[in-house]
């Protein structure tokens, strides 16, 4: 008979995570008990205040982390979570993205007083019921609690310190996103199709993850990352099981970040989902999944580096090349940005295979963790801003996402075109934008880690990628508009704030990357 004892939960370190999860639950209660008219404002207010409170909490936890030399922080909840420097950094970033995402979700000016989400998801497209829902001004305010659940899943995912927590976090972050992708007000068939594809492929990949977890557990005899590290270092067990398990878990994580060859869902889902959801999802999922991937590879499989590093070399090269080549051929702005996000996944993996620990890095050299954390910050803000602008360029049928509709935008709305050009230049990695400092960081880390072939490919694909970004800029400024031309709907303060913050972040991180790089360096390494 095995004795059970009460687990110790360190609420002092975990409360921001629990708070965000609680916000999701409160949101469900608001949905159930408040009259329809007041839900939108209450939901937004509660979620926003809660997110800001959680952010303050994360900052406080970050300043009070225990110092252990290279890493700082502690392992909490009986080994389920690690609250260390990188965790706190990622949590803070996720909560900022969540706040920006909330502002975008709450935007009601673009659809003339209605949100971007379906009035009634159950009403069939093109029926009387749908028109009635629209004329009665119905809104799905469930999107706010769904987003809070997704954010709490991401926070779990980023802090997971054993394989089971990793799996639970993966599912808690994915399930709300499947639903959110299917809730668009316009082009509902595309949106539903995106949800179906995302769901089936996402569930398929999580099946691989859990089988991989089972095999690694069978090899190591434990789910904890530290235990797996010990087992790999000492054991003489069945290595085939370990390697197959490692491969299967990697499939799931690489699927979530949209790396080639697991990228097939990315363009479809990015295009079909409501643009506000795409903005949030593109930024936040990548942040959380890269945090989880780094912790898994560095902490649990750190002593197995020689078997996963070649795999990541190959996947980084494939992601950059395939993403850049296919992006050139796109005629839809959202699809083009989706393929560009696949390229950026490749750049992020390039950073991930750089030098591992502070100890191995020379003076002034940038470590892999530091470079990836910094790149995630730059990428997140540029993505949020770019998709927020996509939601503004509209015609009578909703968003005008076809590239030809963007011709002549520079004359129509110089400000929006200028901001979008800035984000595109940032994606391309032009100096004095955030993208340049991010790219510099990951390339420097990969170079000093000896991955110079990957860096060569990365530089070449950056040049190729610059072509299709600059093509859009040329289109906006130098092409004559076709037909009635594009029109920019003036957003309310909510979307404008998000775009403003993103523009500011893109410029500041490009001109003065120092403070955020220091912060990433201060986060230190992953704790064991």
């Amino acid at each position, binding site marked *: 008979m*095995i004795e059970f004892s009460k687990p110790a939960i360190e609420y002092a370190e975990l409360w921001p995570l629990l708070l965000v999860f609680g916000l999701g639950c409160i949101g469900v209660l608001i949905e159930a008990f408040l009259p329809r008219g007041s839900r939108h404002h209450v939901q937004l207010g509660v979620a926003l205040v809660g997110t800001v409170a959680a952010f303050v909490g994360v900052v406080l936890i970050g300043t009070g982390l225990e110092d252990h030399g290279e890493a700082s922080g502690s392992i909490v909840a009986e080994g389920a979570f690690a609250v260390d420097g990188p965790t706190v950094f990622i949590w803070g970033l996720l909560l900022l993205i969540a706040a920006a995402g909330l502002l975008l979700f709450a935007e009601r000016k673009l659809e003339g007083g209605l949100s971007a989400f379906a009035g009634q*998801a*159950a009403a*069939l*497209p093109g029926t009387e019921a749908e028109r009635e829902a629209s004329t009665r001004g119905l809104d799905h305010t469930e999107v706010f609690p769904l987003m809070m659940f997704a954010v709490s899943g991401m926070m779990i995912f980023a802090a997971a310190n054993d*394989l*089971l927590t990793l*799996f*639970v976090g993966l*599912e808690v972050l994915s*399930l709300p996103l*499947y*639903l959110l992708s*299917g809730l668009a007000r316009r082009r*509902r*068939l*595309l949106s*539903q*199709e*995106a*949800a*179906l*594809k995302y*769901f*089936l492929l996402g*569930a*398929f990949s*999580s*099946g*691989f993850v*859990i*089988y991989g*977890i*089972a*095999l690694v*557990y*069978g090899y190591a*005899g*434990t*789910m904890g990352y530290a235990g797996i590290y010990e087992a790999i270092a000492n054991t003489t067990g069945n290595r085939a099981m370990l390697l197959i398990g490692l491969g299967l878990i990697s499939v799931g994580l690489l699927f979530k970040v949209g790396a080639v060859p697991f990228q097939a869902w990315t*363009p*479809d889902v990015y*295009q*079909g989902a409501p643009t506000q959801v795409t903005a949030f999802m593109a930024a936040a999922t990548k942040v959380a999944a890269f945090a989880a991937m780094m912790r898994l590879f560095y902490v649990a499989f750190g002593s197995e580096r020689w078997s996963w590093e070649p795999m990541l070399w190959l996947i980084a090269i494939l992601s950059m090349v395939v993403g850049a080549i296919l992006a050139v*051929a796109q005629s839809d702005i959202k699809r083009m940005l989706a393929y560009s996000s696949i390229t950026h996944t490749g750049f992020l993996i390039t950073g991930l295979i750089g030098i591992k620990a502070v100890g191995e890095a020379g003076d002034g050299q940038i470590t892999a963790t530091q470079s990836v954390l910094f790149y995630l910050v730059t990428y997140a803000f540029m993505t949020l801003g770019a998709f927020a602008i996509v939601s503004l360029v509209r015609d009578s049928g909703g968003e005008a996402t076809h590239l030809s509709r963007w011709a002549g935008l520079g004359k129509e709305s110089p400000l929006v075109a200028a901001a979008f050009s800035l984000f595109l230049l940032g994606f391309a990695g032009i100096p004095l934008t955030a993208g340049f400092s991010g790219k510099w960081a990951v390339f420097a880390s990969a170079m000093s880690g000896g991955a110079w072939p990957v860096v060569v490919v990365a530089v070449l694909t950056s040049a190729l990628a610059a072509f299709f970004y600059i093509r859009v800029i040329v289109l906006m400024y130098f092409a004559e508009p076709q037909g009635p031309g594009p029109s920019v709907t003036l957003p309310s303060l909510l979307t404008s704030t998000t775009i403003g913050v993103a523009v500011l972040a893109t410029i500041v991180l490009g001109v003065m990357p120092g403070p955020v790089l220091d912060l990433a360096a201060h986060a230190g390494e992953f704790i064991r």
Partner: protein
Amino acid sequence: MSTEPYILLSAILFTIGSVGVLVRRNAIVVFMCIELMLNASNLALVTFAKANGNLDGQIAAFFVMVVAAAEVVVGLAIIMTIFRTRRSASVDDASLLKY
């Protein structure tokens, strides 16, 4: 007790599930195949728990069941919506998004 037959069975079930996802057309059947993959993992987890002599794997199996139930709720809702719109649950018919 030898645990190998159970691992072998779970690997066979997992393979049937993943091949099913790739070859079947009906979204519901695809989804059932995914559930089969999750249950194959459950069998592996429980067997490894027995082999390793600790309870981690059995607890994980409970979590996988909860996750599978949550996935059914979300997944069937999505498949239902698309079936009502298109009058078809075939994954080949939903093909507006491409290239």
